């Protein structure tokens, strides 16, 4: 395949003038420079830099990521050095050579002009570093809370994005779930939102499929995600707790507080689709650094707060699945009625709501990788993680 690419050269021992120019570009980037490689090479083609000897140049992905960081802010020196030696986690193209920095290669992946790298190539490197930052940040300190003696006995199930956050908050207040005579609050909202919530929850735990594949998979199985099917969830809890009267299907999340015996309970806000996509990619990289339960914990306690304020629409179910989802909503409504579960709120609230969004409001459009990269850069540059300006 590569036999016709040019003269045979051992890349590690090539010493052309352009290699010197490349090393000077590395220095330029280390100093905060933003000149693209092609422009730099045109200006410094015959530069001389005898210091470099046999050392290996960082890869094109790493160098371009530093340049983008410089464009986006003022990365700390330590962050720049981390980027320069960071290999992208997982499978995919390896670190690539800079086009023009070395002799034409007879072997190995072809060198590349870093400006032509896709946003996805750069995100692959960035998420590895973000994952390291997340591990480094650790959990926020939490005092162990003693369970209150006098508390309403409850279970919370249903929409896992909302329910898991509510349960965590209640536990932090000394109100662990369970106990004799507990009532299950099966939390839900409109089905389109719940499906989006289910995907958000997986993005902030194990990663999983991207939004498009997630929706396609659900449709292929012709089955709602387990926690989204509220009738089935109520059906699982009722016999365990003593019958349908021990279950409340709560279709107004703000009213869960009353069911579980507290004044108010935070309803976890949605995270924007782009932020969730970055979280999903980061979860993949984090899975190589920590065990699955620890990953979920870190994703929720460290990364989710950092991405919570990112503006943008939440993922929206693609039009081709909407009719199917509306039919599923009718089936769930029928199941809840048939089960005889008390409903808090209006059962009609289960019907999917379709926001009137422009095309770019959908999660998986062509420009999403660029937006995800931009978000990744801002996370890396966050002074809170030491990525921003040197003190």
């Amino acid at each position, binding site marked *: 395949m590569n036999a016709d690419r040019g003269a045979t050269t051992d890349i590690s021992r090539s010493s052309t003038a352009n290699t010197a120019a490349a090393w000077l570009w590395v220095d330029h980037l280390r100093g905060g420079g933003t000149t693209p490689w092609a422009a730099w090479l045109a200006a410094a083609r015959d530069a001389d830099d005898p210091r470099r000897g046999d050392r290996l140049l960082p890869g094109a992905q790493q160098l371009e990521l530093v340049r983008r960081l410089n464009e986006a802010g003022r990365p700390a020196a330590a962050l720049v050095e981390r980027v320069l030696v960071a290999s992208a986690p997982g*499978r995919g*193209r*390896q670190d690539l050579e800079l086009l023009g920095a070395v002799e034409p290669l007879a072997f190995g*992946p072809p060198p590349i002009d870093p400006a032509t790298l896709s946003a996805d190539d750069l995100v692959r490197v960035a998420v590895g570093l973000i994952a390291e930052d997340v591990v480094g940040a650790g959990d926020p300190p939490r005092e162990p809370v003693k369970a209150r003696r006098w508390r309403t006995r409850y279970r919370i199930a249903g929409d896992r994005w909302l329910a898991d956050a509510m349960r965590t908050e209640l536990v932090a207040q000394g109100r662990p779930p369970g106990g004799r005579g507990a009532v299950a609050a099966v939390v839900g909202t409109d089905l389109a939102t719940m499906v989006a919530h289910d995907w958000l929850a997986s993005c902030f735990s194990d990663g999983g499929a991207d939004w498009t594949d997630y929706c396609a998979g659900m449709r292929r199985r012709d089955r709602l995600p387990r926690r989204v099917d509220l009738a089935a969830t109520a059906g699982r809890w009722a016999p365990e707790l003593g019958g349908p009267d021990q279950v409340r299907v709560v279709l107004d999340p703000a009213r869960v507080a009353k069911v579980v015996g507290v004044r108010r309970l935070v309803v976890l806000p949605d995270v924007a689709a782009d932020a969730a996509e970055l979280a999903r990619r980061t979860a993949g990289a984090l899975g*190589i650094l920590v065990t699955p339960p620890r990953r979920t914990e870190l994703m929720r306690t460290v990364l989710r707060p950092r991405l919570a304020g990112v503006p943008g629409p939440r993922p929206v179910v693609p039009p081709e699945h909407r009719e199917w989802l509306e039919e599923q909503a009718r089936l769930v409504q029928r199941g809840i009625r048939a089960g005889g579960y008390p409903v808090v709120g209006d059962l009609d609230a289960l019907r999917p709501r379709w926001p009137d969004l422009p095309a770019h409001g959908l999660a998986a459009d062509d420009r999403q990788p660029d937006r995800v990269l931009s978000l990744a850069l801002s996370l890396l540059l966050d002074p809170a993680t030491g990525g921003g300006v040197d003190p």
Partner: protein
Amino acid sequence: MSERVLLHVGTPKTGTSYLQDVLFRNRVKLLASGITYPAERFDAHFLAALDLMKMPWGGLQAEAIGAWDELAAAVRKAPGTSIISHEILATASRSQVKRALESVGYGAGTEVHVILSVRDLVRQIPAEWQENVKHRAGLSYQDFLKRIQDPERASRIGSWFWGVQEIPDILNRWGHDLPPDHVHLVTVPPPGAPDLLWKRFSTAFGLDGLDLDLEAERVNPSLGVPEIALIRRINRRANKDLHPPDYRPLVRELLAHQTLSRRTSSPRLALPPDVHPWVQQLSESWVAEIRRRGYDVVGELDDLIGGPAVAASDYADPDRPAERQVADAAVDAIKALLLDNARLRREEERLHGELHEAHLALERSYLRPTYRLREKVVRRLERSLAGKGVLKVYRAARGRSSLSA
């Protein structure tokens, strides 16, 4: 500290499973000869490689966390010679190679050797596609060939294939800092010399003269054309419904390895005749390059050129297999699944029997008069508010409450 470390970094499909199996099962004997193979489980070095390269692998990566540092620490601690071996290390990036070498003592007084076992592309290309199919891939042979011929290597298939198979590039990454005589190539001989490969491994790893148990327990058998075509069809039909933890025991092990690999009379998978000239030209350029670099070669470099192309009339295309042969293989596969299902049914019946016995024993204990009396009292108390209060006090006093979560 190890005086010498032998890093065997690939390539896949070159007898590596056999080598690792021999090293693992003989590690006590090896230790007595001053050679450490630091592994508590047969796949320890695989996990270490995943950790070094930060590579997800069907959930196994969770077991791999910290595995490279543990392995490197064991190597640094061991006296004499230590061996690390896993074929996926071939795809490590330059910075990962740097970390690997330094972590085993390179630059701190340890003599590090890199060993690469290599086989001609004429056999490696079909073998890699087959391996992809046995790992759930559904792509055709033609698509696979197209992707590996893409000069950009932008696909996952292309980047992985060349990452683990492009010998001069692997050696650039792993050997750029080492003197050429510390880089060793073990060539896989042409078919028909079953013991020769082990002799070459033995020479390269300094195992000559040791009395080792060479009986293979872990082998990775290959499939014929109709059999691999069948597995690909199964992948395409069942992949989306069959979870990865079920795929390995059912498809890869039961169907591919234990059943279909026994059908040895079916046509074998080969390189398409029209691709052969390209592969041969590439292989010749590799041989010339390796010869120029002056590495230590155990075996014959010309083994890398590979055999002649199969005649077009003899070529069996796995994308257009003989349907009668595929149907025959499918019947064998169904038979294997039926027998396995029957085994599971017997196991299920046995477990049902055990469960029934346990229920009977439980019922017998419930029928004791004291238990029935206590049950009656509790039921009566639970009917009234006062009774519930009495029960609560009793439970609190007893110090065991079922009220908590």
